[in-house]
């Protein structure tokens, strides 16, 4: 048995911010090992955003001569599709990290280690940022290379939009992870499909005013609707939409809180029903 001094020293190594950061880093290291040794995985992360971007870019080329707003803002569709992918990749980054642990039957090992739930979530969110940067970053590069469109032409608002959409993606990703833990890998399809439920009411390619009047209130409770409305304001009017920014930020906080709470409940449910050691392929 250890002496009291040894125990105290060992306990100090397991507590505090540095210890938390080390455990989060371990989780990131685990997924980085996986990603970096598989070029097909890296390519597939950028593949879908790039192909979608190319489709919308050619549509822009086709419509631009006859469409006034595309002449004023030629990056309208490309910017929209790239930002949509920030939301999609942000959500997938959280969900797929979790699914990966389930496929590996590794949840049991993780949850009997000193890794805390908050650290597990922090790891998921960090990995989501990395996956989004790789996926959307690739598409942004090809947008510039093939169509001379730079998403960075949005300037500072880009950073705000990126953060707001990523946070909304995280909250959906956490909720989806919770559902997969609750109902098993049979619910994996949710990881790919869930986000498309909010797509029609997010106004990605059209203003919210286009929606039927009864549907518009639904749109305005989504951070994504405020972001895409704000993006159009930046592109067409050149002003930063503060009211949309604050609305989206407030809604993000609420949704993130709900996402974390749902995930916590799912972990609690899994502990009660013995799913942490049983889940797997």
């Amino acid at each position, binding site marked *: 048995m250890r002496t009291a001094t040894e125990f105290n020293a060992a306990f100090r190594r*397991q507590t505090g911010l540095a210890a938390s950061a080390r*455990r989060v880093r371990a989780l990131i*290291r685990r997924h980085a090992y996986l990603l970096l040794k598989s070029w097909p995985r890296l390519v597939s992360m950028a593949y879908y955003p790039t192909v979608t971007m190319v489709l919308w870019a050619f549509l822009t080329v086709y419509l631009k001569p006859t469409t006034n707003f595309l002449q004023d803002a030629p990056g309208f569709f490309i910017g929209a599709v790239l930002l949509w992918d920030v939301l999609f990749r942000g959500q997938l980054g959280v969900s797929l990290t979790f699914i990966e642990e389930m496929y590996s039957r590794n949840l049991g090992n993780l949850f009997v280690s*000193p890794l805390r739930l908050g650290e597990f979530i922090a790891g998921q969110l960090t990995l989501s940022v990395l996956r989004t940067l790789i996926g959307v970053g690739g598409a942004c590069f090809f947008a510039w290379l093939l169509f001379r469109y730079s998403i960075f032409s949005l300037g500072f608002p880009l950073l705000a939009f990126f953060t707001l959409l990523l946070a909304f993606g995280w909250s959906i990703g956490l909720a989806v992870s919770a559902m997969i833990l609750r109902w098993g890998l049979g619910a994996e399809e949710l990881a790919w499909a869930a986000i498309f439920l909010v797509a029609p009411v997010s106004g990605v390619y059209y203003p919210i005013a286009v929606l039927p009047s009864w549907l518009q209130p639904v749109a305005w409770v989504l951070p994504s609707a405020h972001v895409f409305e704000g993006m159009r304001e930046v592109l067409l009017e050149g002003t930063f939409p503060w009211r949309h920014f604050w609305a989206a930020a407030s809604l993000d906080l609420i949704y993130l809180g709900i996402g974390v709470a749902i995930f916590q409940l799912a972990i609690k449910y899994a502990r009660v029903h013995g799913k942490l*050691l049983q889940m797997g392929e």
Partner: protein
Amino acid sequence: MDAFRSPRSSATSVAESDAAIVVNELRKRYDDVDAVKGISFAVRAGTTTALLGGNGAGKTTTLSMLLGVLTPTAGTISVLGCDILSDRYRVLPRMNFTSPYVDLPRRLTVGENLRVFADLYGVREPRKRIAQLAGEFDLSELLTRPYGNLSAGQRTRVSLAKALLNRPEVLLLDEPTASLDPDIGDRMRTYLEHYQAESHCTMLLASHNMGEVERMCDDVIMLREGLVVDQGSPQDLIELYGRENMEEVFLDVARGRGEDSDLGAPSREVAA
């Protein structure tokens, strides 16, 4: 001194100060199935104790509750003086486990897997520790191979190495040498015995290998249908049941023999 104690009083038969694990009136109910029906026991610090029972006796359920990944329906669990339900993170760094019910990421190499868990457990000088364990478990040649490409026996050795990364004071082992050939199995048992002798680690193992239990364990807790039906040293239980070895004792307990006779009666005492 009584070598055998009544199961109901077993939690108190070991002084709390001597116990690394104390379980009291532990219950687990899944919907309409009582998997564990109010068991109590204590495991002396620095000893190896076996948790024995047939399939469905409640061994894995009990181990899962001890690890904090399964919430009990009722009862308390104290590990190294910490309540596992409310103070889990204080004690988890001092524990570890291996189980056939969990796996390691298959596409990561053995070395990568061990490095990730070394970081999770806050192991000092992780490379040195991994190299040391790789040498001891004959894994040096496998460190760069994907875990998924290993044989079942090799994976078991990796899982054991992972379980010892943080030099645990309490080690929970679910079928630790299953799928190992007799030679490797013997080496693993020898290693665990040496590790315990050096570190005074407390080990609780669930096993169906009765030779392993007789060789390694100071105490045995026999479970049947979610209840502790007997407890004592392997030798005491063999004498109590009038059998030649633990294999026969296990069969008696698993098949419920001795319930109608005085064999295995909970209050029976065996001379030390």
